């Protein structure tokens, strides 16, 4: 499913949060959003998901202009947002329909993928921060959505669990060709997963740079190519932070 934003802006009580955000993803593309805290990344995801409809501009999904909740969008929120009255298994299978036994099997599969087998009976209050986040990830993935919005999905996880889940995400991507928009603070992660990286800047956030990564996935972690790119991205970020002067959109191609 393709996705396009045209000059999307949003203000909260008179304070603009994002300004004229435009980008387009092809079907099956993974787009990364990088940017400083508070620059409007979550606001963009909420607008795409249809949870926030008070934006200005145009969002089209599969060439159809939309406003409001769309079918088959999965959203991994910035916080786990587990339903406290459901246990792990019930939380994971929350969005599934169909026979109970099938739901359970799918739930178990995904719980295993996120490293939480045997934990299905626990309630949210009994989970550690990272475990809760992993349950939330499983909940979003288990429905196999066609578009997946991920808001810092792995930030609460240790390096290795993180890598494992990045691999999981890629395997899902290669199976379903899911279109993804990934908000992350981890440049390595963005470089490992994304086909394109948008760097947002300022408050209100605007797109300050767009980096297209053409290397096919799965990629090698920590390759020399990546390292150069990372340095470059860091530089862009640093530049922005340094001063508030306008930066022309640059296109990097690897």
């Amino acid at each position, binding site marked *: 499913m393709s996705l396009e934003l045209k*000059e999307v*802006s*949003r*203000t909260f*009580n*008179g304070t*603009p949060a994002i*300004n*004229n955000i435009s980008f387009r993803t092809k079907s099956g593309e993974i787009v990364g959003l990088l940017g400083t805290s508070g620059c409007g990344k979550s606001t963009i995801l909420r607008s795409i998901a249809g949870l926030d409809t008070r934006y*200005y501009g145009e969002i089209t999904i599969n060439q159809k202009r939309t406003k409001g909740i769309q079918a088959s969008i999965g959203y991994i929120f910035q916080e786990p947002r587990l339903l406290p009255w459901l246990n792990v298994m019930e939380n994971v299978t929350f969005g599934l329909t169909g026979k109970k036994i099938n739901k359970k099997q799918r739930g178990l599969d995904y719980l295993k993928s996120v490293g939480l087998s045997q934990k299905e009976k626990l309630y949210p*209050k009994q989970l550690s921060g990272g475990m809760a986040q992993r349950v939330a990830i499983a909940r979003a993935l288990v429905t196999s959505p066609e578009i997946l919005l991920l808001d810092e999905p792995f930030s609460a996880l240790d390096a290795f669990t993180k890598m494992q889940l990045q691999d999981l995400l890629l395997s899902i991507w290669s199976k379903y060709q899911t279109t993804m928009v990934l908000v992350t603070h981890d440049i390595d992660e963005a470089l490992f997963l994304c086909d394109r990286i948008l760097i947002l800047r300022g408050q*209100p956030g605007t797109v300050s740079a767009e980096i297209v990564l053409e290397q096919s996935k799965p990629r090698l972690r920590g390759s020399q190519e990546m390292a150069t790119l990372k340095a470059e991205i860091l530089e862009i970020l640093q530049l922005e932070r340094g001063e508030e002067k306008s930066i022309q959109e640059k296109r990097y191609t690897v």
Partner: protein
Amino acid sequence: MSKVSEEVINWDKNKFKRNKSFLSYEVIWMGSIIPILLLIVWEVLSRFGYFPTYLLPAPTTVVDTIINLAEDGSLWGHVGITLYRVFAGFFLGTAAALMLGGLVGLYRKAELLFDPLIQAFRAIPSLAWVPLFILWMGIGEVSKITMISVGVFFPVYLNIISGITGVDRKLIEVGKMNRLSTFQLVRRIILPASLPSFLTGLRSGLGLGWMFVVAAELMGASQGLGYLLIAGQNTLSPETILASILLFAFIGKGTDWILKKLESRTLHWQDRIVKS
């Protein structure tokens, strides 16, 4: 800031303003539809003799009765004294509920000691208290106000406890890490966090306070809305009964409105969904 974003701001502000004035107009208008419809149906049915007037006089007759009461000045006496009793009882009952509810909500010992008894008292009807209250406190204002405070007490108490037990452990821990004493913990964390529940309790309690007015004013009152109601029943004048019901409804609604405003003022921080 670009031109577009400035536009965005203005648009947002305008929408906000328009909504506001539109709202208060709409609120009153839509809130009146059903009551007015009911009144019209009632009036018509009375006019056509479907309800015999000596049982259920037309609304106009009832309003006439209220106007007469207002003209000869006795209305203000009735309303005033009842308002005074309800408010006094409301404060007393709320204070008691706060104290006991706080204790029971916070300490297991207090819960074990007091809660069973209080829960048992909760089912006793207001009328049942009347002879006991007359016995213990005579028929002065004290017994009347206490009676009303009994009514107010229970819902406030229940809601306080439910509010306290529902406070997120995570927030209480924040307080603990800031070395708050139990009292400070209550005042600075538990009370605000359980405020939604507490306010619902207050509103429920105020409603019950109004209901207990009748039992209170059975205890030797010669003025008040409850008195008016009972007198209407004893002298078989349905227009007086209905006048008192109408007054109960209006003034009860008025006092509730105050609490509702308070609620929306103090709970603005709640992260709620906007209703469609």
